[in-house]
Every structure is written in structure tokens, then in C-alpha cells.
């Protein structure tokens, strides 16, 4: 009798665990809240240093600025689609997914449908190679194909695809790959801005180049988490070298009280910032960014 009772214990534990995990209805949220108590610490590690998360601005913002500056479409700035098969390691695939993604955004902004289709195909290819295919549902891909040529819709879809892949990578503990994709996108759009500044010279574009000072610092922090990997050595070396040039960019900020309109739900931030970047600064930054891009796209 004693033997048979003890033999039932594992069954009891299994039953209990099934009951716990299957409890639903009104107690679901309460149960999850209790679990959060235990989950918070491990999830806060993902927030970064001291619970702060540093956000790299979307590359589409700079691409939009470049287009508004009146710069002509320049396909020679983009990474050749033919190189896509030469990226065989995850490191270079992720970086170039970021680069091709930025190129896709650029071709879309300029209504270059054929080129947009080419860049859509290469981003799709690399995404598949990286196992990101399941990040995009069939609906998203169909909408892409249907909306090629419609700039506004395409911009929304490019953002949606970017978010889908970013979420997928984060959910699957692939933060390193997500960081590399972001880094690739940032390098490419900075390269766009530098090329435009060289050929056309525009105050807003020049300002945007200078504005990347803090973003670069955040990007280096983001990637430094993986500096133990051999592949990162040269990339981080070159990014830190770029940083030494950006350290020469002078930034002055003066706070002013913002103005809020409750009716329209708009706050106008009137604080002023002045930034000083010399032509020599820009030239050196341009050379160093070209070197970083060359390392990634070779």
C-alpha cells in the first residue's frame, strides 16, 4: 500500500503543474503578475546598463531628409545587390541586412520601383538565410509586392518589416543579430548623408551628420557587449577611430521651456542646440565611414 501511494507522487506533481499552467479566466492576469515578480530581474538585464535602453534613430529619417534636400537619386551610393551571396557568416549577413534595408528605404523614397524590387529581393534573401522568414507573415510580403511603387505605403511596410524582424530577434534571444542590423542601417544612411554633403553641400544634411555624435557613442556601447568575438575587433576599432573624429564636433545646448497645446496634443520643444563641425571634420568622418562600410560590404 505504501509503495503504491508513493508511486502516485510524480503523477500528483504532474497533475498539479498541469492545473497551474492551465488555469485561466479571471485569475490569468493575477497569476502572470505574480510570475512577473520572479521574471523582472532577468528581463531587466536586457534593458542594458542600469536599466537604460539606448535607441538608435530609424535610418529612414535621414533618408527622408536627404530627399527633401533636393539631392538627386544616386544609385552608385547603394550596396550592389549582386554581392548578396558573398555574405556567408551571420556577422556580415546581419550587417548587410541593415545596409540593404536602408537601401530599400532610399529607393522607395525616390520612387525607384525597379530598384526597390531588387533591394526587396535581396533583403528577403538574407532574411531567409538568417532564419527570419517566420518573422514576416504572408500578408506582409503580399502587401510589399502589391504596393511596390506606392511610396507612402512602402515606407510604412518597410518600417513594419523592420519592426517584425527586430521583435522576432529579440523574442528569440538574438539581440546580437538585432544590434548588427541596426549598426548596418546606421552606417549606410550616414554614408548617404556624407555623399550628398560632398556633392551638393546642404546645411540640414551637414547638421544631420554632426547630430550622429551621440548615436555613434550609443552604437559603440551596444556592440561592445560582443567585443569578445573576433569578428567584432576590427569593426569596433574602426568605430572607435570614427569616434575620435566625432569628439571634435562641438555641441552646445540651451534649455528653453517647451510650449504645450493641450487641444492638439502637441508640445513644441523650443530648446536650442548649436553644433560646430568643420569641413575638415566632415572630410575625415567621410573617409572613416567609407572604410567601415568597405569592411562590411567587401
Amino acid at each position: 500500500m505504501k509503495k503504491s501511494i508513493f508511486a502516485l507522487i510524480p503523477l500528483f506533481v504532474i497533475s498539479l503543474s498541469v492545473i497551474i499552467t492551465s488555469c485561466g479566466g479571471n485569475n490569468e492576469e493575477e497569476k502572470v503578475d505574480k510570475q512577473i515578480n520572479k521574471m523582472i530581474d532577468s528581463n531587466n538585464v536586457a534593458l542594458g546598463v542600469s536599466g537604460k535602453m539606448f535607441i538608435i534613430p530609424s535610418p529612414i529619417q535621414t533618408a527622408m531628409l536627404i530627399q527633401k534636400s533636393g539631392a538627386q537619386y544616386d544609385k552608385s551610393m547603394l550596396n550592389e545587390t549582386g554581392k548578396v551571396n558573398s555574405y556567408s557568416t551571420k556577422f556580415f549577413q546581419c550587417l548587410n541586412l541593415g545596409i540593404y534595408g536602408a537601401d530599400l528605404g532610399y529607393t522607395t523614397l525616390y520612387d525607384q520601383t525597379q530598384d526597390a524590387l531588387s533591394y526587396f529581393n535581396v533583403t528577403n534573401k538574407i532574411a531567409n538565410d538568417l532564419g527570419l522568414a517566420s518573422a514576416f507573415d504572408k500578408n506582409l510580403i503580399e502587401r510589399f509586392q502589391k504596393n511596390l511603387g506606392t511610396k507612402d505605403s512602402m515606407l510604412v511596410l518597410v518600417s513594419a518589416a523592420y519592426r517584425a524582424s527586430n521583435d522576432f530577434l529579440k523574442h528569440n534571444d538574438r539581440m546580437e543579430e538585432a544590434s548588427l542590423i541596426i549598426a548596418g542601417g546606421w552606417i549606410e544612411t550616414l554614408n548617404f548623408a556624407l555623399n550628398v554633403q560632398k556633392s551638393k553641400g546642404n546645411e540640414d544634411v551637414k547638421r544631420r551628420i554632426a547630430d550622429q555624435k551621440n548615436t555613434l557613442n550609443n552604437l559603440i556601447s551596444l556592440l561592445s557587449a560582443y567585443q569578445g568575438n573576433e569578428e567584432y575587433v576590427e569593426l569596433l576599432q574602426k568605430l572607435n577611430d570614427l569616434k575620435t573624429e566625432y569628439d571634435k564636433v562641438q555641441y552646445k545646448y540651451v534649455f528653453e521651456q517647451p510650449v504645450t497645446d493641450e487641444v492638439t496634443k502637441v508640445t513644441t520643444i523650443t530648446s536650442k542646440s548649436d553644433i560646430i563641425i568643420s569641413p575638415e571634420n566632415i572630410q575625415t568622418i567621410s573617409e572613416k565611414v567609407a572604410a567601415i562600410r568597405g569592411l562590411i560590404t567587401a
Partner: protein
Amino acid sequence: MKKVFFRLLVGLFFILPSIWKGAGMGLHAQCDTIASVCAKHIMAPYISDGQQYRALLMAEQNAEFHTTFYGGGTYRIAACTGLKDGNLVFSVYDEERNLLFSNKEYKNAPYWDFKVNSTLDVIIEATLDGAQSGCAVVLIGFKQ
């Protein structure tokens, strides 16, 4: 007796991680749902910046998100927790910690727009309002 005890230990070894994983997946799923609901606040003419910023918070904790707002741009910040609007307080500071905006003064509005004259680095702080714990989701969009 020893055999039964051993079976119990083995059983627990396999069962507990799945309970834990189930709870973790539940939290991710909860955050996903909140993010989907929150995304309705970032619609045309705003384009999402392509990311979701999430933090699992307890009461009194806050999450900090650091980003750059470019001069000449107009941004929308949407901040949500739970399936209903109005439960998450978000505040925006500059790098010198001057308060630029807090939705607490506007009935915890789930989104707000920011017209930026000059580029500045901002800190977005999110805190739960009332709940003991929850997933905070912050989304950022910029105007075309």
C-alpha cells in the same frame, strides 16, 4: 522509497522549466498584445521607427529610453500597458533632466506629439500608474 524519490526529482527537473517557460512565454505574449493595441496610436501621417521598446516593471520602478529627436522633425510617443489606455505614465526629459512633458498632467494620455526645433537627446521615462506590475510598451513614430 529511494526509487520513488528519484522519480519525483526527475519529474520536477523536467516539469519546472516548462512551468517557468510557460510563464515567460505568457509575459512575452502579453507584451505582444499590448504592443499591437498600442500600435493603433502610430498611424499615418506618422511612420513607426520600426522598433518596440518594452520593459517589465513593478510598482515604483521606471524604465528609461534614451534617443535623439532631430531638429525640424515631429515625433509621436505612444506608451501603453494593459489593454486599456491611461495606465502608463510617461515623461520626457532632456539630457540635463529638465522636464519637457509628462502625460500625468493630461490624464495619462496614451500618446503625445513633439515638434522639435533643434536636435536634442531625450530621455523617455515610463512608470506604471496603479498597477503592481506590468509590461510597459513605448512606440515612437515620426511624421513624413
